[in-house]
């Protein structure tokens, strides 16, 4: 077991370091093979670890930080939660590595790209497997850095570099809260080991636990792009599409949820903290769904959809249902990665056109992309019997069971958000893939128009990768079937970990709630069909030519949060920086030095004028010195 875990971490690290150092000198195929091979090797080790798993195990590899009482060795903790996360990460990352071989085939910077991808996998696995908080923080920071470097991968355009910087700075706010929480926990409990901390929750009063919970929530907000720190994720779509799929769909943005799930035995003792977490999740889900309704850029729709789904996961954590949240995390990883990779295929086919109002008729042109993409959309909308349906419903059921006015309100909000999700998902599908009949005029200025309607090319490798993800998304529901269909395997598996309780419920209630959710999803699809399907599509396209106004503009710009932050924080900060620079740094500090030097120069000149070469001056000085000495003598004597 120790060997498997060590290899799981070391293989991606090795791949990343080799690619970073000598990747440019290796032939392209070798570098790519190395990068994909190490992640594949990590997946194999993860499978081996899964088969050898019996009970939660703590593996200490070596010592890292040790000073007085503070000990943070490199020790890994394998329990059901981290095991399933590890399997998901290595599998999805492996697929994405293969995909990006084809996607980045024209890019000369392949060595940097694969090095960063490998390092990202290493950091994410460290985060998931960490047994103590400093090691988790190491992984946390690692994924943050790799995310920054990958978002701004094409840094020669300023927009991309700015997006990377924005992501880094906003997540930094969360990281600061996390750092404070770690130090506070050490000061309270004298340990930073997660397993020990989770057992000590009862020692402190509820106020302290609430404080810790809120700090961890803020750090999760930053990493997982929840309100109010969600402004970086839509802009992060400036990076290559595999990066968006990897980091901003499947792995990094789930790190916040993972952290909260990990520390739930500690912070779950505070009802207030859980309520705030749930509230954050619910409100964020609603916010992101409204924004996704108005977006024009394909990847931005998916970005807002990610924010919304992670809001659901937070809602699940806030309701205390770790099983449901983890289930949704896994399924979301599959179908969101699928959607992003499909979007990558679409964008490649459309020669990097990303506006959905300029696409159309792709169902006929690239069918092999269409069907998996449709599967992913079905999962996202939560249509009955897909994996997405079961996972989203599990969360909503847990919220319903929690009871109380707050949770009931959040249940309603979650249901309404599910409706919005279905609407915007199928808006996207209809606009991108619909149309294309010979009687319909093609939208102007598309490659279809230029090519005269010939079929568009998507590299085969990219399309084939979509298939396994589609299958997993559609049939992933078997992982945790609700009680009336059979026992949930995931639930049973996770229950073996301390602190996770299985929420049982009456079969009838479950069926009723699932029925409601199914009706909502189908209703959403119907509304989207009414508005965007068939003939109405042309009207929508025409209407989209005019600039957006009113509510549409409000949602398009993300409820103007960017403008709000610019007004509240950035402009005062820039003003303060300018004042400090011009008035203090140049005015006071530089000026005072200049003036001091000037005064010294003048003093020297003044003193220098003593040497006049004239006897009269010297005689006077002599007499003055003599008078001084005599006066001093008299003073001393008397």
């Amino acid at each position, binding site marked *: 077991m120790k060997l498997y875990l060590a290899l799981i971490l070391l293989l991606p690290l090795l791949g990343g370091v080799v690619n970073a150092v000598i990747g440019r000198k290796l032939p392209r195929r070798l570098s790519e093979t190395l990068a994909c091979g190490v992640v594949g090797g990590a997946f194999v080790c993860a499978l081996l670890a899964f088969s050898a798993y019996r009970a939660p195990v703590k593996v200490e590899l070596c010592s890292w930080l040790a000073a007085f009482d503070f000990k943070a060795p490199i020790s890994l903790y394998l329990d059901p939660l981290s095991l399933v996360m590890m399997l998901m990460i290595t599998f999805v990352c492996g697929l994405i590595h293969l995909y990006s071989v084809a996607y980045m085939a024209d890019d000369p910077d392949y060595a940097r790209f694969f090095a960063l991808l490998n390092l990202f996998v290493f950091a994410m696995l460290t985060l998931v497997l960490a047994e103590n908080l400093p090691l988790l923080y190491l992984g946390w920071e690692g994924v943050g850095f790799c995310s920054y470097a990958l978002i701004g991968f094409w840094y020669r355009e300023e927009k991309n570099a700015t997006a990377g910087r924005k992501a880094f700075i906003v997540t930094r706010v969360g990281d600061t809260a996390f750092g404070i929480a770690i130090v506070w926990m050490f000061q309270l409990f004298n340990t930073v080991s997660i397993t020990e901390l989770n057992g000590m929750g009862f020692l402190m009063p509820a106020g302290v636990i609430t404080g810790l919970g809120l700090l961890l929530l803020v750090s999760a907000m930053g990493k997982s792009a929840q309100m109010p720190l969600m402004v970086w994720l839509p802009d992060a779509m400036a990076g290559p599409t595999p990066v968006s799929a990897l980091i901003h769909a499947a792995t990094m943005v789930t790190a916040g949820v993972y952290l909260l799930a990990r520390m739930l035995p500690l912070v779950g003792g505070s009802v207030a903290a859980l309520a705030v977490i749930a509230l954050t999740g619910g409100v964020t889900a609603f916010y992101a769904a409204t924004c996704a309704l108005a977006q024009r850029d394909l990847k931005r729709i998916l970005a807002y959809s990610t924010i919304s789904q992670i809001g659901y996961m937070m809602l699940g954590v806030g309701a205390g249902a770790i099983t449901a949240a983890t289930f949704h995390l896994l399924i979301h990883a599959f179908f969101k990665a699928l959607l992003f990779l499909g979007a990558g295929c679409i964008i490649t086919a459309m020669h990097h056109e990303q506006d959905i109002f300029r696409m159309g008729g792709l169902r006929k042109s690239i069918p092999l992309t269409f069907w998996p993409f449709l599967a992913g959309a079905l999962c996202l909308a939560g249509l009955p019997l897909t994996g997405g349906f079961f996972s989203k419903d599990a969360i909503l059921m847990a919220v319903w069971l929690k009871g109380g006015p707050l949770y009931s309100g959040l249940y309603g909000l979650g249901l309404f958000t599910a409706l919005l999700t279905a609407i915007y998902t199928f808006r996207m599908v209809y606009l991108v893939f619909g149309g294309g009949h010979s009687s319909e005029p093609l939208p102007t200025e598309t490659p279809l128009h230029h090519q005269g309607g010939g079929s568009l090319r998507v590299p085969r490798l990219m399309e084939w990768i979509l298939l396994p993800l589609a299958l997993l998304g559609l049939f992933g529901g078997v992982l945790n079937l609700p009680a009336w269909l059979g026992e949930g395997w995931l639930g049973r598996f996770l229950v073996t970990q301390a602190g996770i309780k299985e929420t049982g419920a009456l079969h009838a209630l479950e069926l009723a709630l699932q029925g409601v959710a199914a009706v909502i999803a189908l209703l959403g699809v119907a509304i989207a069909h009414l508005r965007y399907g068939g003939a109405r599509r042309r009207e929508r396209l025409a209407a989209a030519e005019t600039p957006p106004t009113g509510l549409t503009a409000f949602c398009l710009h993300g409820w103007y949060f960017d403008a709000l932050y610019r007004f509240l924080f950035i402009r005062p900060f820039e003003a303060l920086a300018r004042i400090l620079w011009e008035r203090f740094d140049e005015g006071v500090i530089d000026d005072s030095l200049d003036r001091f030097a000037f005064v010294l120069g003048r003093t020297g000149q003044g003193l220098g004028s003593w040497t*006049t070469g004239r*006897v*009269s001056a010297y005689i006077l000085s002599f007499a003055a010195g003599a008078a001084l000495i005599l006066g001093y003598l008299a003073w001393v004597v008397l």
Partner: protein
Amino acid sequence: MIVPLLHVLILAGILFVLGLVCVLVWRSNIIMMLIGIEVMLNAAMLAFVGGANRWGMADGQVFALMIMAMTSAEVSLALALVVYLHRRKRTVNTDEFSEMKG
């Protein structure tokens, strides 16, 4: 002693300071500076003689005589210098002779 030594010394002090003031006031004129020096030396002689008188020994007077001899030597050389300088620049203003400046 006819007067306390203190009074003699006070007189010597006053004369010395007057000579010093002369040197300092007339520091632009060589001749007047030399005169001030003469006054100062005289005051010193007075102090020596007063001391000799106080202790009844002749040593003080001997030294006063030495001072006088030294003064004459010094004055002759000083005035020879004044003549020399006057030949160079036709003035006895000390401020004119500032080649040692800097």
